[in-house]
């Protein structure tokens, strides 16, 4: 087994992709220096600054350059330092990248990856702590990946890079330095669009994304002490969403709690709830409960932020509500 971190796994996975395919390039602010979370550490040293390109603070143009480069044969991996900055490049991503294949009648492809990170927990306040993945899931043509661990990074990032479509990978800033052991032989790439059943159980289904997968697993362990066996599912990709795996579980358990870090109102949980109530209406024994952040901007103060970010306690409370 190899001891590693989420951030180091990103760097290692990018390096492997760049070794295997010279069309893979990395660009973004400070990427040649490793970036603030060291997720591109060592790449410039190995591959040079022609393929690991530091850019000005011009998110829109950087994203547009990646689109043009992707259309002309490269496989760019762009880093936007915080998902909070995605608003600066959204036109490029939505009107440029997501629609090109469709509008050209299939002639153009935009095989690019946009890596960014979201989530609270580092006292970044209202403009550096958001979870905005739900916006991206409303855009046909984009794929959205939310890896919850180094293992998922190793499994999914290569598939994102190999995908012929624009893929946004939303990492979690609180997971970057989380320690994890991976098998020595490595982790095989896995296709996008397949959920992972993290834990089996028959009493309630908990669908959790990104950091909340760990909170949900912890909640499940505590529930087990009280004789309640929760099934924990990590969708891993929000688009495409593996509804069959979730629906099969809910049909068995009859109860669903959805947990994410984004605001509950307008968060991605609504999409899962809407789909599941339609697919599993007659199997549901209780209303679907969503656990998310309250509908406010992210506060700075540690006391407020800790209360803002949902965790194990909120998931347990949600499970209590569906169990009645």
């Amino acid at each position: 087994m190899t001891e590693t971190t989420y951030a180091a796994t990103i760097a290692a996975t990018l390096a492997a992709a760049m070794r295997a395919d010279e069309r893979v390039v990395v660009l973004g602010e400070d990427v040649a220096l490793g970036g603030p979370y060291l997720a591109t550490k060592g790449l410039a040293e190995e591959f040079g600054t022609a393929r690991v390109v530091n850019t000005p603070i011009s998110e829109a143009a950087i994203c547009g350059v990646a689109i043009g480069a992707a259309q002309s044969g490269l496989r760019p991996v762009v880093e936007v330092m915080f998902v909070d900055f995605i608003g600066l490049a959204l036109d490029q991503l939505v009107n440029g990248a997501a629609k090109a294949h469709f509008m050209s009648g299939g002639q153009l492809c935009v095989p690019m990856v946009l890596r960014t990170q979201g989530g609270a927990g580092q006292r970044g306040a209202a403009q550096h702590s958001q979870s905005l993945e739900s916006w991206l899931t409303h855009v046909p043509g984009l794929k959205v990946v939310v890896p919850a661990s180094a293992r998922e990074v190793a499994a999914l990032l290569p598939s994102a890079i190999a995908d012929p479509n624009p893929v946004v990978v939303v990492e979690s800033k609180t997971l970057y330095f989380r320690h994890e052991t991976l098998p020595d032989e490595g982790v095989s790439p896995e296709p996008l669009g397949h959920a992972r059943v993290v834990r089996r159980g028959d009493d309630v289904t908990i669908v959790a994304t990104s950091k909340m997968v760990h909170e949900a697993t912890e909640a499940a362990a505590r529930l087990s002490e009280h004789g309640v066996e929760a099934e924990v599912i990590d969708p891993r990709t929000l688009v495409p969403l593996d509804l069959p795996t979730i629906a099969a579980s809910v049909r068995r358990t009859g109860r669903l709690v959805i947990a994410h870090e984004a605001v509950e109102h307008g968060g991605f949980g609504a999409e899962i709830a809407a789909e599941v109530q339609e697919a599993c209406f007659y199997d549901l024994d209780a209303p679907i409960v969503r656990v998310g952040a309250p509908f406010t901007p992210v506060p700075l103060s540690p006391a407020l932020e800790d209360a803002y970010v949902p965790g194990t306690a909120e998931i347990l409370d949600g499970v209590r509500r569906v169990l009645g």
Partner: protein
Amino acid sequence: MANANATDGSAPEALDPERLVWMYTQMYRIREFEERVKSTFTEHPGILRGHTHLADGAEASIVGSVAALAPGDQIVTTYRCHGYPIALGTDTKRMMAEIYGKEGGLCGGLGGSMHLYDVDRGFLGGSGIVAQAIPHATGAAWAAQIRRQGQVVVCFFGDGASKQGAFHESLNIASLWKLPIVYVMENNRYQASTRTDQEDANAASGEPLSTKAKAYSMEGVTVDGADPVAVHATLADALARARSGTGPTLVESLVYRLSAHGNLIAPPGVPLNYPEHEAIAIFGNRDEYEAALRGDPVPRFRHQLVTEGTLSAADADAIEQAAREEIDEAQRFALDSPWPAPDSGLAYVYA
């Protein structure tokens, strides 16, 4: 009254000794405040866990600019924003408490280091997103133009911001509409950890960044941002031009920030600190950094005032002692202030 400490003057006349001493006092207060914020990382670990950006090294530029303001003028800044409100007279106790995320903070702990406001003193805040406050300042200048009370808005931002679309769009409109605004680009030579010549076509060609003003048919000027008197004179000119309706100016103020871009970013539980300046940590250029230290504008200005006889060494010591005591008090207040109630934000989502 807005800007109680600012001159009343629209004219760029010579600064009197009292004013020069006032400027030194503000520079020293800012330095002391920033150093105290920085030392909080080691002396009170865990209190500061957000993104904190310090302005030490830019004091002369900040104070020289603020000193040129008239009552009623307004400023809009970046997330590196501690210095301006100090010079404008904002209570340092409430500032420190805000940076610590405490209930007694300027914004009750909802904003933090990057999001300070003091509207009564003309400080309209800024944005945590690079360059995105430039259009806000431009809109405030439009409001000032309509109000016709002779107000000017000064918009501060860094060199990196000039590569954002918001800069281009805003300066074009400000020039087109002859808005009463002065754009002050504090060029500190690094965009986070990228050198300016690695990300800016002008810098790469050895041109001053004030060259960009040509793209907007606007006045562009570069000034030594380590010299508060020179900054004051440049701003006074630019403010007069703005006030007279002639149009905006782009001022490039050359500064050297003496701390790294911001504190280390790490997960909760890992004690944060301020890393070494990028010149050393990334580019291995200790000579550059040490030269910058030798040119530190705060002791340089003290030396100038003492040598000229404007300020005695004893008075300078007293100013510094008073500033230390003030910041001691600010820090005590911030440490003692309670954490806000967890639900205290809910009332402020909508006005």
